[in-house]
């Protein structure tokens, strides 16, 4: 089971040979002179689960609705398995949406909700009943066929919505924040269910979320969007450790960001000169980033002294903010909770070169596609 969960790619090819790739090519949508989504290109490999991640208003839901065919893009093209779906009605795309709210049909019972898509396709009654039964079993709602929607808990409603989507055997599954309306305990349960169903069925899936934990645990690759633009399309560790834009760095918690100019492997910043690990080309404008947990207390590489301005207890750790004596720039450090540190105390910190990241302006992904 571990092997199954860790290597999704392997399972995917075994589980669903008919899965299609999803291509977004130069996709754009303009509202009132503002681009909600601008020149977005990315490829979701067949059977993969990719997350569109970003703060609210970044264009991720707009993108999802364009894939579903609920709104028409102003520029670009969408392809399912290589075929353009431009102008294809939503019901003919085979891209099924699961909304944040379960959006169940309250005048129908559970079985009629789950069987809705099959009934619209005029599948025989027997086939529908059988597949509805199987789908309800998959989401652990076996035997609930005759329940009314109002009798279900919110977690059950969301699982009915999921079963209703899966039973139609969609070419592309679109999940619009499906967990954010649930209580935290239910959320974990539902997330595991989503992961398991995806591993079993291998449907090409796009998950929209603003929760980076959700994206990192469910998705093979994450497309980070900000201001309607794709910032970076990569795996979770890459986004976490090697952000290519300031927006990505900030979203993933790389809070120490110093504007810099780089000459011969040394970055001039307000913190002081920072020696970089790799030979770096000279840049007049760049940003040097380092995660708080990678900063060490005490003398070492790239050290500076500052005065503690703030400390926050986080359980195992405490977050300490200090202001450097030279340059008066703020540095945030994560240290063990039992380390005795007082406000206004003088502390020396060092920034190990191996953890320094150079963020180059204009580094946002433009036509990034997964390798392999």
């Amino acid at each position, binding site marked *: 089971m571990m092997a199954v969960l860790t290597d999704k790619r392997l399972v995917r090819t075994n589980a669903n040979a008919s899965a299609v790739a999803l291509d977004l090519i130069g996709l754009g949508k303009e509202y009132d002179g503002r681009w909600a989504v601008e020149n977005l290109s990315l490829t979701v490999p067949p059977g993969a689960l990719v997350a569109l991640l970003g703060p609210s208003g970044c264009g991720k839901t707009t993108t999802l609705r364009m894939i*579903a*065919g*609920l709104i028409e893009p102003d520029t670009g093209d969408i392809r399912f398995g290589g075929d353009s779906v431009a102008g294809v*009605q*939503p*019901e003919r795309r*085979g*891209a*099924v*949406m699961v*909304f944040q*709210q379960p*959006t169940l*049909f*309250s*005048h129908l019972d559970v079985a009629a909700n789950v069987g*809705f*898509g099959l009934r*619209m*396709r005029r599948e025989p009654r027997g086939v529908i009943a059988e597949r509805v039964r199987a789908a309800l079993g998959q989401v652990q709602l076996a035997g609930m066929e005759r329940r*009314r*929607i*109002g*009798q279900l808990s919110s977690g059950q409603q969301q699982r009915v919505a999921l079963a*209703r*989507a899966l039973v*139609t055997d969609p070419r592309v599954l*679109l999940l619009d924040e499906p967990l954010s309306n649930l209580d935290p305990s239910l959320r974990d349960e539902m997330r595991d269910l989503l992961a398991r169903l995806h591993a079993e069925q291998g449907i090409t899936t796009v998950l929209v979320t603003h929760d980076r934990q959700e994206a990192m645990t469910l998705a093979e690759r994450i497309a980070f969007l900000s201001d309607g633009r794709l910032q970076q399309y990569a795996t979770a560790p890459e986004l976490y450790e090697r952000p290519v834009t300031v927006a990505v760095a900030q979203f993933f918690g790389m809070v120490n960001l110093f504007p810099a100019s780089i000459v011969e492997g040394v970055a001039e910043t307000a913190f002081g000169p920072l020696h970089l690990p790799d030979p770096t080309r000279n840049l007049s404008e760049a940003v040097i980033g380092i995660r708080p947990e990678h900063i060490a207390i005490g003398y070492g590489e790239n050290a500076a002294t500052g005065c503690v301005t703030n400390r926050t207890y986080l359980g195992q750790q405490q977050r300490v903010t200090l202001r450097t004596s030279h340059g008066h720039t703020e540095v945030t450090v994560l240290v063990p909770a039992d380390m005795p540190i007082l406000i206004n105390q003088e502390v020396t910190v060092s920034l190990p070169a191996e953890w320094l990241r150079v963020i180059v302006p204009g580094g946002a992904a433009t036509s990034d596609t997964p390798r392999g």
Partner: protein
Amino acid sequence: MLPSAVVSLWVALVILPVVPLVIWSAAFSWRWPDLLPTAWSGRAWRYVFSPTTQVRAGLIGSSTVALLTMMLALAIGTPAGIAVGRMAFRGKRAIELLLLAPFIVPGLIVTMGIQIVFIHLRLADTMQGVVFAHLMPALPYVIISVAGVATNVGVQVEEQARSLGATSWQTFIHITLPLLRPGLAVGGLFAFLVSWSQYTSTLIIGGGKVQTLPLLVYAFTRSGDNPIAAALALLFVAPAVVALALASRTLRVRQSVVGGRL
């Protein structure tokens, strides 16, 4: 649990006015200052149920006109109600105000204008003409009640249906209409009752060619035949009471089933 004041008001406004009608319909002679009629008779009710009188024509006329009006009002008013309830468009406030116009402008004035137009359109003195004339006061009830429900039903449930593979027509039939049903029931009922109780427009546009119950009631009231007028009036009120009771029942059942979660 109705508060007793509401019950008293209900009795005073609805039940009490009906009591003299019931007595009159069975009276032979009832003169001032007698508290009750001095002589009783079944003549009025025999007349009302006799197949040889105009009552049957009036009943058929009223039912036909009211049903046609209701169906047309639903057919036209439902899409309009959905638009008013859901969409934001230029001039929406003006349209909402215009919808209230039939409640504000006296029916007689409108009917005079309509008559002139209908004469040109050869709709005067026809049942179609009467139905169209009734449609005008009936339509706003359908539009307003459908708009109220449509606002709550929302677009997302339709998008969900489309995304699951339903065509726009299938979505309308299987999702939108059933969810709009409370609004359709109320609007349809009101449209029926508005048409059912029209007098002036039926008289003027129908030109006496279209017979309905209110015209008969008025005729007998004017001729001073109170027993028959009273019996007709009771017959006239009956469907309204039945329809209202039925509608409030179905609406209550639906609400409890839906559970308030749309």
